């Protein structure tokens, strides 16, 4: 029977004084797959290991189901873990690797066989049961590692970047397999990765961490459309969101945003519209995703425009990514901070998505249409989204 995972006020301080995790609140529903994502050092793996019992919890509480597991050994927590480097027992066959946790718990031989064979079938390992890890490919080893986790039928799965050692193509395949498997088995899963694409595709919900602090959690699309701060805005989504420096001004009854020497109206339907009134005369950070900076083809003609000079064009076949020098000053978001912006020294290179038919070359002066309704605004001091 699977159970949910609840982290309340969890913190971790290392003996040297480094605070790895601060005041983390996370609730994973029973049967849900939640992805913890963030750059390296953000604390996601530490969180996973604390849940597994491989690291001490300095403050706060972790529950699996109803049980508080803070002081329990890994053995007693009824969790199964898939390690980044698989941690397969090198001297044992695949069968023995899969059987190990069951034998460790003293299960009868018949039951062991039944579970191992079922797991092997589920993961397509049938023909490999007699082989040793060194005779397996990366993808096969990864599946054995998963198999070892599922034979136990635990309450919770913990996965530590299980796909990061595979090549890109294999990764995409395995992603789908893991998603299917998890859905079929219905076991609560905490999944850690640094790859935001993986997070977006796998998780029912994702939690973005940076510097040991939870930045935002929610369904992937929500984080994409409505990032809570500059960090999430630039971390989620590839290519990253453009950040520009702007200033809010009044133009009669309406609000406009000055970007460089252009003024772009704040769309009344923009979620931030109401709150922006309080920023009149103040500077803000404006976020625009590449798909909201388009060329004239296929955009409504009344969209406000910005001028820019083309620096470089990336042909993607279905569309083009155009690197532009806009008038607006760029904003640089430092990774690992809480999204507080700094100032870029050089000219802004914004990325815009143009249709593939539009002919552009480096050096051209072009006009970019801005989907003002989709612009995001952030407070330049705190990095938080203005809503």
């Amino acid at each position, binding site marked *: 029977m699977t159970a949910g995972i609840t982290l309340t006020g969890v913190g971790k301080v290392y003996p040297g004084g480094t605070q790895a995790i601060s005041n983390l609140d996370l609730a994973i529903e029973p049967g849900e797959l939640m992805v913890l994502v963030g750059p390296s050092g953000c604390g996601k793996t530490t969180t996973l*290991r604390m849940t597994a019992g*491989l*690291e*001490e919890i300095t403050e706060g509480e972790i529950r699996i189901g109803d049980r508080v597991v803070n002081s329990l050994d890994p053995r007693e927590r009824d969790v199964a873990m898939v390690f980044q480097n698989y941690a397969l027992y090198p001297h044992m066959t695949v069968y023995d690797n899969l059987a190990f946790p069951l034998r460790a718990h003293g299960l009868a031989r018949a039951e062991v066989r039944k579970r191992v064979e079922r797991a092997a079938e589920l993961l397509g390992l049938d023909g490999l049961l007699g082989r040793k890890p060194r005779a397996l490919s990366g993808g096969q080893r990864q599946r054995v590692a998963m198999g070892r986790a599922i034979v136990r039928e635990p309450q919770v799965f913990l996965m530590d970047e299980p796909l990061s050692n595979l090549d890109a193509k294999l990764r995409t395949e395995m992603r789908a397999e893991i998603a299917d498997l998890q859905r079929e088995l219905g076991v609560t899963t905490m999944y850690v990765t640094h790859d935001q694409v993986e997070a977006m595709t796998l998780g029912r919900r994702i939690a973005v961490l940076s510097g040991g602090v939870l930045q935002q959690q929610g369904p992937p699309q929500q984080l994409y459309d409505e990032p809570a701060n500059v960090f999430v805005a630039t971390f989620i989504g590839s290519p990253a969101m453009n950040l520009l420096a702007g200033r809010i001004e009044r133009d009669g009854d309406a609000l406009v945003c000055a970007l460089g020497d252009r003024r772009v109206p704040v769309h009344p339907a923009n979620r931030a519209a109401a709150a922006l009134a309080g920023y009149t005369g103040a500077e803000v950070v404006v976020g625009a995703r590449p798909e909201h900076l388009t060329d004239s083809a296929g955009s409504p003609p009344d969209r406000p425009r910005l001028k820019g000079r083309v620096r470089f064009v990336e042909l993607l076949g279905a569309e083009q990514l155009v690197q532009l020098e806009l008038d607006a000053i760029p904003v640089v978001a430092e990774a690992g901070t809480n999204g507080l912006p700094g100032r870029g020294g050089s000219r802004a290179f914004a990325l815009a998505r143009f249709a593939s038919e539009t002919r552009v070359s480096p050096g051209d002066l072009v006009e970019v249409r801005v989907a003002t309704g989709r612009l995001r605004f952030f407070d330049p001091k705190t990095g938080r989204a203005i809503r």
Partner: protein
Amino acid sequence: MGLARYSRATFLRELALILVAAVFCLPLYLLVAIALDTTAQSFKTPLSFPWPPHFGNFAQAWHAGGLGNLGHALESSLIITVSSVACLLVLGSLCAYAVARRQGRLSNVLYVLFVLGIILPFQLAIIPLYVAMRHLGLVGNYAGMILLNVGLLMPLTVFLYTGFIRALPRDYEEAARVDGAGLLRTYARVVFPLLWPITATAAVLVGIIVWNEFFVALIFLAGTRYQTLPVALYNFAGEYVARWNLVFAGVLIAIAPVLAFYLFAQRQLIRGFSGGVKG
């Protein structure tokens, strides 16, 4: 590092191990305690430390004359060890360089022969060697002992170096070649410096073996003024039988150099034994 969890079980284990270590070190404690004692026949409790400590034993042991003289033996051991190790490092590394860098069956065969040389015990070989060296006037002097050490420990040295050199990328040698360096210059200036880690290990390992060697030294140097520390200690202990405080003072003097060396080179020594002997 997750498993650095210092649980209560770990604490108990550490305590147990410290106790075991304490008991384990008792012989060493006794060594020092008796060496500082005025008479070893004292009827005090077995493990007490003599107070006040009597350092006179050391002076007496040091000045013991004749075959038990430790001072001369120390000098002798030093000369023999340093010379043997130096020769072994040079000749052994050169030999290993050839074996390691040449591919093919011959080099594999040679490697196996050297390993065999390590396993084969020298008790049998010593007899004809003694005879031959006696003929050549090499018994009872430095030259003979050094030659013997070099010969006997060559397989171990070559074995240690070969493994290391095989794992060394050839890039540096090729670069030197392109730069116009000849073989010996390449070896001396480029390769040998890169061998520093294994040189340190080999030097320490072989050095300790030579320094402590007794059987061979007994046969070749006993009764001469070139006898090494172990032989001198043997004579010394024989002379002062049952005067344990003096004997122990002598033992302490004899092992002092190695003890001092151990303080600095212990990690190297440990690594040498565990790494060099593997595979």
